[in-house]
């Protein structure tokens, strides 16, 4: 029988905090991280709000514990900050002590830096240190720089399935543990804001000029965000032998494709429904045992109808509290699945249901509405976390309280 998989370390940086504790504090204070950008060179600087990490790159270099140098993109730096915390929290001083795989996720790699020098890169007349950023063009660059800095040498992969990327990274890592290939994996994703993605989503008319309003009748789109998050996954036998602090159990997951449209979900939420249903079935938990759902909830017109319909199909009106935390962080694309997986662990360990900010009016298509108040001292044993992406890629994770 395949091993159970435990979460034994977590690290993150988002618009609402430089570490896990900072994120929890801001979630409790119900304080959003959305605002205008300081760092992206765009005509939408004062127009489109984003969830930007307010630290400049010099500060990120310091927090990452490395000297300022060329070739380290903001994507890499955000990843390193989160990675350092995850390893520290898991009590890992030397990665070599136990073979440990690293599964990273990224949607556009180091585009945040590439786009600033791209026209120099293609211009034979130009030369200079910008050449150092040639490699940041691809998604593996951040993965390998993070790996080389902290000492990963074993199995390595970067996954890119748009907005579900890091949920798929967690799934892949857990499956490698269950397949007996590794006892320990570190999985997650990193994403920096770019002019490329901001204009991409804006060209799809998916970006709200106000703070995003998931599951609200008046919602008009998402706000992009940036951040990084990594979770340390360990097999049950290793975690016990190693005396690891077990934060939660990763009990279920499913990746299902919708095969409906390149960028839009189906109106009935077929992919979301299949992903949630199969993930819950794998966890062995019943519908009644789910106390909280951290929804994908991007606040785009289509996502929220589709995901809402899937929730109704699954739970009817007896739905547990659900909320989108994207009004806190913005939509962090490849990092979102891992960031929200950590929020799921925080919900379980602290008995908190995070409010869905900016909600005022229930969607006319739905009978259900998100939790709008912060709820504390709630018994939460199982959380479903959703991440859905372009290409019909739907991923759901079930994270459960560790019961021994």
């Amino acid at each position, binding site marked *: 029988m395949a091993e159970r998989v435990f979460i034994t370390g977590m690290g993150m940086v988002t618009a609402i905090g430089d570490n896990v504790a900072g994120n929890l504090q801001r979630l409790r204070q119900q304080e959003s991280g959305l605002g205008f950008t300081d760092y992206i060179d765009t005509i939408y600087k004062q127009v489109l709000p984003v969830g930007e990490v307010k630290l400049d790159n010099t500060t990120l270099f310091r927090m990452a514990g490395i000297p300022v140098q060329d070739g380290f993109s903001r994507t890499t730096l955000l990843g390193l900050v989160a990675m350092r915390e995850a390893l520290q929290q898991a009590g890992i001083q030397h990665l070599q002590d136990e073979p440990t795989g690293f599964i990273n996720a990224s949607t556009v790699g180091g585009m945040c830096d590439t786009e600033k020098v791209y*026209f120099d890169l293609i211009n034979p007349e130009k030369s200079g240190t910008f050449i150092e950023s040639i490699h940041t*063009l691809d998604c593996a660059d951040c993965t390998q720089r993070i790996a080389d800095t902290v000492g990963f040498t074993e199995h390595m992969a970067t996954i890119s399935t748009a907005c579900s990327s890091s949920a798929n990274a967690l799934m892949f890592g857990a499956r490698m543990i269950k397949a007996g290939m590794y006892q320990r994996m570190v999985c997650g994703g990193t994403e920096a804001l770019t002019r490329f993605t901001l204009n*991409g989503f804006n060209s799809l008319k998916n970006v709200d000029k106000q703070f995003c309003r998931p599951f609200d009748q008046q919602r008009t789109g998402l706000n992009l965000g940036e951040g990084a998050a990594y979770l340390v996954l360990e097999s049950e036998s290793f975690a016990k032998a190693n005396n690891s602090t077990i934060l939660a159990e990763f009990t279920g997951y499913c990746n299902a494709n919708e*095969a409906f449209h*390149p960028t839009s979900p189906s109106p009935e939420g077929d992919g979301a429904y299949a992903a949630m249903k199969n993930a819950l079935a794998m966890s062995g938990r019943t519908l009644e045992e789910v106390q909280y759902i951290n929804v994908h909830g991007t606040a785009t017109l289509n996502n929220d109808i589709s995901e809402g319909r899937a929730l109704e199909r699954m739970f009817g009106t007896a739905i547990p509290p659900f909320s989108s935390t994207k009004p806190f962080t913005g939509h962090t694309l490849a990092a979102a699945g891992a960031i929200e997986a950590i929020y799921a662990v925080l919900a379980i360990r602290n008995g908190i249901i995070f409010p869905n900010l900016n909600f005022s009016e229930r969607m006319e298509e739905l009978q259900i509405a998100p939790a709008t108040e912060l709820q504390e001292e709630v018994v939460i044993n199982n959380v479903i976390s959703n991440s859905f992406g372009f290409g019909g*890629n739907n991923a759901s994770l079930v994270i459960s309280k560790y019961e021994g």
Partner: protein
Amino acid sequence: MKVKCYIQGMAAISPQQTFDGDISTAPFVHSESNRLVCVEPDYKPYIPANSLRRMTRVLRMGLATALKCLSVSGVSTPGPIVTGTGKGSLQDTEKFIKEIEQYKETALNPTPFIQSTYNSVNGLIALQQNGTDYNNTFVHRGFSFENALVDSMMLLQEGASHTLTGSFEEMTPEHYYIKSRIGQWREAPVGNTHLFDANLPGTISGEGSAFFVLAAAPTQESKAAVTGIKLLYKPASERLSAVLQELGADADLVISGANGDSNYAHYYQLLNTVLPKPTIPFKHLCGEYDTAGSFALWLAASLLHAGNIPAEWFPMVKELPADFKKVVIYNHFFGEQHTVMVVEKV
């Protein structure tokens, strides 16, 4: 993980005539350029004209290869779709970067942005074949396709009846220029036939798409079996030697990723020392690219299935083995991601 799966069908678009041709009879495509370009098929039998118009080059290549692979494999649904690509649609990425600049961030057409997303080919395959199963895309340079293969083998072990596993990669003139700035390519035109003649820095670039239907159990239709895979990140030579020995000791044919680049030739010299066996190269056929390993797997399975090696494709090899049942493939991507695959006759 149990490392054994069967190739039930496959298809490849490459700089050789691999899509419509037969490996035993197709002529070797010679190129004078250091950028090998795919021989693209007529896409109309695979992709409806209205979709084809919107799709850029690597999307067409990836989708058509996947669809042909499914049709020759005789499976009714694709099952899980797992792919690897190092660079995704470069053409769309370049176009969107430029349009942002050109149109000053206003009134942009979202199509290049959508198509630049690395998993867009997966989405198209799923959409056209109603593939509602697992769907994943790996984007890690020389580990992209091999991670897709590892993922597929895990899926088969977890109970999937078959998977659709593949790769897609393109090289654009602009990206070729960018990578020339760090010396990835030969400075003077070398021509693929003479790639191995001189020991010089740099290689020739390539591109292609290869897809496989993989199954856990063999059938009459099985083309070959994949019986070993190992991914090594920046390995020390001792580690690499040990793995080559472990996986390749009883192989009777070696397929080497040698690409004529003197900067990294020492790894392939190590291969020849550790496994002194009949060896054939493949980069003169497809060029160097992130997912060239998928072409090597296609080649290994094709040769095993055909039972012989077409001499015309390997003019630089003096003596080709007549009989071989177990093939070991060793490849690395600019010295960083090293991969070993074992492919056997069924």
